[in-house]
């Protein structure tokens, strides 16, 4: 088994960075390092993770300012060369703002911050991020969500492209936030950039109630073997 080198980007206001680090390092025994957002080197990482949180206090729009952090130029170049990039929650918002993923995330339909476990299903099980799902979890698995701006939108053409290219990775079974087509997570056309609102890093140990989030991180490491 190859040990995969993960880089977790830390923006001012990131707050799920240590959770991802812990899962990858302690539970999955991978090589992990933090990358400060002002860095211009990705330190030869194989996978870049943009973690959840409130980068720049969500000022202006969620992710709008983080998108211009120096490291994002490198992340965009890395993604264009086929490098694997995953954005969780605020990381998903940053990927949309930077144009690495289509669409945008607006205020939840209820206007409330929603923090709860939700049921999801895998729509495309052949991606880098879903290839090693436990069979029983594919049609229904649970992850926590914690966001106020998780309502995914895009125009009609983009939606039909997402559908026909199998870019919709995860859908909510009971839509919590108003997202178009129940979208909870998507990949880019090439399949190497992924963004999702739910938090898999918060569901990786039985002690915390669920290990179903491991499906996603294991799929990534498996894709290197």
């Amino acid at each position, binding site marked *: 088994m190859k040990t995969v080198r993960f880089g977790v980007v830390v923006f001012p206001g990131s707050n799920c960075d240590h959770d991802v680090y812990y899962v990858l390092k302690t539970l999955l025994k991978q090589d992990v390092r933090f990358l400060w957002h002002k860095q211009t080197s990705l330190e030869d990482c194989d996978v870049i993770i943009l973690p959840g949180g409130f980068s720049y206090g969500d000022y*202006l*729009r969620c992710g*709008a*300012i983080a998108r*211009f952090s120096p490291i994002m130029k490198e992340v965009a170049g890395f993604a264009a060369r086929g490098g694997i990039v995953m954005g969780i929650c605020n990381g998903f918002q940053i990927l*949309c*703002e930077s144009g690495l993923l*289509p*669409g*945008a995330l*607006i*205020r*939840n*339909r*209820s*206007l409330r911050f929603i923090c709860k476990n939700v049921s999801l299903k895998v729509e495309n099980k052949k991606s880098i991020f879903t290839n090693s799902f436990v069979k029983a979890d594919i049609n229904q698995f649970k992850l926590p969500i914690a966001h106020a701006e998780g*309502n995914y*939108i*895009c*125009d009609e053409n983009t939606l039909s492209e997402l559908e026909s290219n199998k870019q919709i990775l995860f859908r909510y079974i009971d839509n919590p936030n*108003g997202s178009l087509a129940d979208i909870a997570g998507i990949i880019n056309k090439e399949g190497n950039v992924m963004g999702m609102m739910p938090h898999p890093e918060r569901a990786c140990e039985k002690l915390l109630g669920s290990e179903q989030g491991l499906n996603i991180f294991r799929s990534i490491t498996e894709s290197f073997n």
Partner: protein
Amino acid sequence: MYSAKVKVTLRKSILDPQGKAVETSIRSLGYDKVTDTRIGKYIELTLDVESEQEARRVMDEICSKLLANPVMEDYEFEITEIKSS
């Protein structure tokens, strides 16, 4: 010197849940003739440039790159010259 006043609003095609909630509240006050409530952002800034044309060009760039997200928002701005006294 020029002053710019920018308005950023959610695009018409996008449901504005905040506007909707505020409208419900307005109507509950008895103003039942109110419709189409939309909530946006207002931004003011000063530009140290030579001409109005230059100010407009720079503002278009700033708005499309950062102040508004074209996927979900529209923007408009007013430019006025600041006369030094």
